């Protein structure tokens, strides 16, 4: 059931190509700003790189989370889903998965450009880097989906989302930046194991609580 829901989101996205294009365009323009504003030598920028990278990823996930639920809100097409025999928690999970897919897809394009523009070379152990990105994205999508899902129907939810999302995401971002920093300076896993556990517990807690809470925030 989740598969067909996620496929539906992907199909809508492929047809309208709104979310991914705006995320990538926004991400690249922010990278441009960073490249111009930090005209420092690569060695100095290397120190800030993890922080900048994750700031870009949060900004594009804001765009994503604003749009991901609007697919349902256009001429009330959420009525199809909520009156059908799909239980609402599964709808929440499918939203998490499809936003994860969109986020990863646009990150695949933005990250190389980030390293290129700021003239930083890729970290040695690329695998750790990708693992961290994946699990932090999972955390972003789980807390993001439940927040944007719950304020979907409030009138100016584009403004509300950042106000709620940024403070909630601080622990995840702290651990993400710390672990990415350690990976950039290729520390062994044991050094950033604690951050990885924090990221995992964050994702698990908010995926599970989102799963339980989402059915309560949908009906009028």
């Amino acid at each position, binding site marked *: 059931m989740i598969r067909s829901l996620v496929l539906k989101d992907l199909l809508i996205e492929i047809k309208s190509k709104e979310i991914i294009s705006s995320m990538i365009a926004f991400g690249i323009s922010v990278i441009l700003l960073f490249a111009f504003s930090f005209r420092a030598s690569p060695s100095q920028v290397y120190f800030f790189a993890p922080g900048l990278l994750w700031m870009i990823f949060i900004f594009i996930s804001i765009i994503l989370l604003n749009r991901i639920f609007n697919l349902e809100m256009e001429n009330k097409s959420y009525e199809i889903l909520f009156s059908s025999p799909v239980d609402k928690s599964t709808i929440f999970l499918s939203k998490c998965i499809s936003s994860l897919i969109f986020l990863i897809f646009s990150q695949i394009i933005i990250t190389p450009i980030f390293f290129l523009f700021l003239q930083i070379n890729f970290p040695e152990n690329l695998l750790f880097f990708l693992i961290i990105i994946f699990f932090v994205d999972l955390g972003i999508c789980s*807390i993001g989906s*439940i*927040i944007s899902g*719950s*304020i979907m*129907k*409030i*009138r*100016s*939810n584009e*403004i*509300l989302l950042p*106000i*709620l999302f*940024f*403070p*909630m995401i*601080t*622990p*995840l971002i*702290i*651990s993400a930046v*710390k672990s990415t920093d350690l990976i950039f300076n290729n520390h062994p896993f044991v050094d950033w194991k*604690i*951050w990885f556990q*924090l990221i995992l*517990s*964050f994702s698990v*807690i*908010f995926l599970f*609580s989102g799963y339980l*809470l989402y059915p*309560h*925030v*949908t*009906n*009028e």
Partner: protein
Amino acid sequence: MSSEIKFFHQNIYSKLFGLLIIFSWLILNYFVLFVTRIDPYQEMAQKIFYFHVPSAWVAGIAYLVVMISGINYLRTKNNYWDYVGYASAEIGTIFCALVLITGPIWATPIWGTSWSWEPRLTTVLIMFLIYLGYFSVRNFGKSLTTIKSISATIGVLAFLNVPIIYFSVKFWAEEVQLHPQPEMMEQPVDIYYTFLFSLIVFFMIYMYLLNYRIHILKIKSKLENILEDY
């Protein structure tokens, strides 16, 4: 046509409770100012401790109450829990602001900086920001019928975040361990009991304001009912 609603203070218990609070506040002042010892180095600044830490405790308890009432509201959909959650969120945010004000006041003379990314203070700051979001959601969504479930959900999510914020900030700010970690147990006896007493007084204030606010929210919703059919 409907029964006359009394003022909160007309029933005897809240009046007594109010007097008890005023009385015990005065006792607390006396204890803090005259009975407890003067810290040789921090002198009077140390006495802010009796107001800073209890308001942090009350803020924490208030936000826990918001989560519990949120869960209960989602389970039972009874308006009472929504009033409890809303009132407790307000009081919790006030005491959160107090912690964020008294903290730097205490820090400026003693550590020379007014703000340090100390784990507990940062957790309180992040909770304060989350609850600014909570209140803006309530304001923006006033017209929506499901606004009560939405704010209950955010109340639950906010409190689930507290332990994670605390630990991540604790590891993040490894080097910033300025905040004294006075283990409560081996504090000298007079500081310990005064602190306990001040905790009780702050908690009484919290309960008092909570009941008062709930009473007002009940009148407000009755008023809305009246206005609608009127």
